[in-house]
Structure formats: C-alpha cells, structure tokens
C-alpha cells in the first residue's frame, strides 16, 4: 500500500479534517496540503517566506560564486581604497556605490553581500548540527525511556541551565574566535531544544494505535521510529528550525559584535555594526544602517515564517 508522506497524520486529526472536508465538499488535503493552505492566508508568514527566499537565493549565489572563485559583488569586499574615503570618514551612497563606502574605502554593498553568505552558512549549518544531534538523542530517549532517557534528559537539563548567550561565550573563549567555531558552538549548544521536543512528541505518539499496529505486524524498533513516529512528530521541529536559523543568525551577529565571532577582514553584519558604531555617531549613517537593516529584516523573516508555520500546524487553531 503506497502512501504519500502527507497522508501520515495523527489518527484523530485525520478523521477530523476528512469529515470536515467531506462536509464542505472539498477535496481532502493531507497535513502539509492543509498547512500550506493556512500558511498562505497568513500575510506575515508570506512576507517572511519572501524574505527567506531572497536571503537563500542571494546567500547561495554568493556561496556558489565563492566556491567557483568568482566575485559576484560589484567590488572586492576587502579592497581598501583611500581615494573613496578622502577624509577617512567614507563616502555616502552614490550610483557607483549604492550603500556608500567605509572609512578605508571598502564598498559597503559588497561587504553586505558577502556577509549574507556568512549568515546563511552559520544559520543553516548550526541548525543542521543541532537537529542532527537532537534527532539522534531525542527518539532514543523518548522511545526507550528508563535509564537512557533519564541520562539524556538530565544532560539536556544541564545544557538548559546555562544562560544561552553566556554558554556560547564560554565555549567561544575556549575554541577561540573564527567562522567554523561560531557555527560549531551554536550548533552543539542547541541540540537540547530539539532533543526535548522530539522526545515529548514521541511520548505522546508512541501510545497511538497505529504504532501499536506496526508493532503487532512485527516492525522493528528502528522501523517504527523512522517510518511511523518521526514523520508524525516533525511539525514542531520544523517550526523550531525556522526560529533556530533566525536565532543562530542573531547569535553569530552578537558574537561578531563582541569581537569573538567572524574575524577581520571578513565581513559579517554583526562585525560591520561593531566596526562602524563610532562613524555612525559621527553622523556617517550609511556604514551602520545597511547591515543593521539587512540583519533585522532577515531575522524578522525567519521569526514571522516560524510563527506562521506554528499557527498553521497547530490543530487547536483549526477552524
């Protein structure tokens, strides 16, 4: 019996939405079809999706160009040119330099573009590390229970006990600054969120009848976890991932702002903000304003999309 991914929904939810669909004469939608329909109606979530799409396209294009050794930006982001900063205070936005230049004549637009790539990689890889760890430990914990569960969950408690930003700082002090260390630190410290989420989901799902049915058919533990339990517990994980990418971008920016993240001469939104604060206070607004706007808009995209996705997958909010 071939079933599409969308069909695998929690039993009672399925009957509810099926009967609703029959009553209104609509074609029955799967869980994700329904989610998509509700997501589209949420304007903020749609705006968030557009922002994320632009961010992904720009970030991936710069990354591919970087691997291919091509410079996609109009200028070399680290090219110092004192002619473009005659007074040592940069030059304001112009047609050739849409975002202006900084105090040593580097093109702000090109630097922002390169920083997009940094944010994208940090956000995606950090969340990927955290989710992988969470998806490895959470199901084990929730499915087997007992001593393994207690050990994993107490470890998660310990990770939650630290105020997050301080824990990241502590790890970064030890690892030392740098691009790779930033996403390693953020990723390793965020696993507990996902492990707890998956575990909670699994605890509620493992008593469902279809899991019992699978077991009665002689399915192995691994098969039950990966074929039946995990696909049904993913909705809150996706929500957390969307928010998590936004959070990782903020954390990277914060670390870089504090001087222990991305190191010069590489550009990162947080690093640029830290570097240009003094010039901002001297009235040279463009250096700081553009990276700030990009950072805030990107994070807003992930948060509003995440919130929209949460509302769209929450069975309690169904009309």
């Amino acid at each position, binding site marked *: 019996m071939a079933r599409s991914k969308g069909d695998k929904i929690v039993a009672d939810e399925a009957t509810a939405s099926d009967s609703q669909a029959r009553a209104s004469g609509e074609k029955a939608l799967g869980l994700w079809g329904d989610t998509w329909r509700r997501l589209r109606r949420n304007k903020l979530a749609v705006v968030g999706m557009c922002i994320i799409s632009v961010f992904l396209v720009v970030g991936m294009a710069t990354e591919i160009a970087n691997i291919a050794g091509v410079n996609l930006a109009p200028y070399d982001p680290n090219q110092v040119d004192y002619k473009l900063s005659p007074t040592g205070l940069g030059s304001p936005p112009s047609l050739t330099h849409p975002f202006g230049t900084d105090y040593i004549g580097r093109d702000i637009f090109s630097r922002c573009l390169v920083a997009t790539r940094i944010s994208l990689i940090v956000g995606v890889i950090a969340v990927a590390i955290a989710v992988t760890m969470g998806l490895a430990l959470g199901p084990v914990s929730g499915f087997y229970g007992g001593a393994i569960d207690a050990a994993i969950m107490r470890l998660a408690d310990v990770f939650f*006990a630290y*105020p*997050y930003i301080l824990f990241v700082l502590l790890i970064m002090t*030890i690892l030392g600054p740098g691009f790779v260390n930033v996403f390693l630190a953020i990723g390793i410290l965020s696993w507990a969120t996902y492990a707890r989420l998956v575990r909670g989901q699994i605890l509620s799902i493992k008593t469902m009848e279809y899991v019992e049915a699978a077991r009665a058919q002689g399915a192995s533990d691994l098969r039950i976890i990966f074929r039946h339990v995990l696909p049904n517990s993913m909705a809150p994980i996706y929500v957390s991932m969307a928010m998590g990418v936004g959070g990782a971008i903020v954390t990277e920016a914060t670390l870089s702002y504090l001087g222990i993240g991305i190191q010069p001469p590489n550009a990162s939104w947080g690093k640029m*903000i830290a570097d240009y604060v003094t010039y901002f206070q001297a009235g040279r607004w463009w250096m700081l304003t553009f990276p*700030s706007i990009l950072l805030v808009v990107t994070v807003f995209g992930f948060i509003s999309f995440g919130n929209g996705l949460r509302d769209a997958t929450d069975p309690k909010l169904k009309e």
Partner: protein
Amino acid sequence: MLAYIVRRLFQLIIVLVGVTIITFIIMFAVPGNPARLLAGKDATPAKIALISHNLGLDRPLYVQYYKFVVRLLHGDLGQSYAVRQPVMQMIKQNVGNTAQLAVAAVLIEMLGIPLGVYSALRQYSFWDTALTTSALVIWGIPVFVLGVFLEQFFWVTLPHWVNSWFGTMWTGLPQTPGRNVWLIFPGSWTSVGALVLPAFTLGILEVAYISYMQRAAMLEVIRSDYIRTARAKGLSERKVVLKHGLKNAIIPVMTIAGIDLGALMGGAIVTETVFNRPGLGLMIYNAIGARDLPVVSGGVLFATLVYVVANLIVDIAYAYVDPRIRLGE
C-alpha cells in the same frame, strides 16, 4: 506540594553537579597552561612547575575536580589573572548594578501584558494587526542594534534637535553611569539616567515577546468552555476578561518574565557592553578580552546559579497556582 518541591530541589542538585562538571571540563580543555599564563612570559620551567604545583595542576583530574567543588562550596571562585582579585569579590561589586538593570527591564516588559490582552480581545482588528506586526519586527532586533540606534537618538540626535529648536543647552540623558547605583531613588539622579536607556532597550524587546505570548495565551483561554459559561451566566465582560480570562492566561507569561529576570541577572552582557555600563556582563566581557578565565568561568557559574534558582522559583510558583503541574507526573 512539598513532595514536588523536594523532587525539584533534587533535580536542581543534579543539574548543578552537571554544570560544575561541564564548566570544569571546559576550563580544563583550555589551550595553554594556566601556570604559564600566571608565571609571565619569560619564566623558567622550574617556576612554571612550582606554580603548577601550587595550583594543584599536577594532580589527577578527579582530585582537581574535587578541590574545585570544595572551593565552590566555600564561595571561592578563584583569583582573577588580570586584576589579582578574588572573583567572588568582583562579582559582589558588580551584581548590584546588574540586578537594578534586570529588575527595571522586567518591570518595563510587563507593559506587554495589557498590549497582548488588548490584541487578543480585538483579534484581527487594525490595532491587533499593527501590534502583532510590530511585535514580530521588534522581536527580531538584536539587542546591540537597538541599543546603538537608541543611544544615537537619545544622546546625539534628540539633544541636537532640542538645542536647535529651543536654543537651550541640553546634553541629553545623562550617560556616565555612577558607581553608586545600588539604590534607584536614594542614589544620585545620574544613576537613574544611566539606567533609563539600557533598561528601555532590554525592556522594549521583551515587551514585543511578552505581548505576543500574552496574545496567544489569551486567545486560547477566551475560546475555552469556562469563558463561555462565565458569559452565559451573565457576568460583566470586564469580570469575564479579568477574573476568568486573564487570571488563567497570565500564568505562562509570568513564567517567561520570571525566567527573564533570572537570565538578565547574568545575561545582560550585550546591553552592558553597548552602553558601557558596569555590571556582571561587562565584567565577563572584559575578562574574555583579557583571556582572564577564572573571571569568565566564575561569572558564568554565578549567572547560571542565579538562572537555575530563578527557574526553580518560577516552577514552584507555577505548581502552586496550577495544581495540574504538581499532580501531573
């Protein structure tokens, strides 16, 4: 209730043991021998060995960990490499400033509660959309970005406007934080001024989050059966909202506020750095720059302890008001 508190206390102890182990491992994993750092650049190997022996660095790991815990229990977090002062003493000097900032910020974030309730009661109205949208936008603003812009506005732009319009000589909000900022009111007015902007920066970000959460909680509650019952028996709308609705919907939000207070006690590091305001966060930040590990790890340990205890108090309060929690497990 007592059983619940005992169980939570027991968990707290396990968590704290875990925290000391992880912090110890992190400190031990540090590249570079602390003895070499302490001895200075051109120290003889014999001197390094002596300092290393005095610090107990030549003993087995478990002995070192045991000594570390014993010292912690005596409130000894070690000696700063850079300032040559006990870390505990440095924490004591800074904790007051941070506490003041944390309390002020949490008081400001309470504004989110009425905003969230209003949004929920007028769901999909113009003001609801406006509030929710701005909450989502503000929520995503990193602390340092908001701090930098507010600082610029209140300390540079606004005084400039005021002076050019009225021809007065106003220099903006006072920006030099007074050392004596223990008490908000009996202290000098400068210290109040130095508190306003940092607290406002932290507070406004949390207002966004709190109002969003309060809206969600309130929406869930006003759809419940007991609200319908309350309305059906003819209670005034005001009573329905405040007594039956808010009383239930405020619990999760107060939890967030309580945890925030605990987190801000040690976690105001970015705000304190942006505004250069003395406190635990600035102390840790400066220590990171100086690679002063005992201060970093001591500061983090202290902040973690405060955070964990705040969480415990919030949990117990939650269990007290909501019997489902303590009877649940």
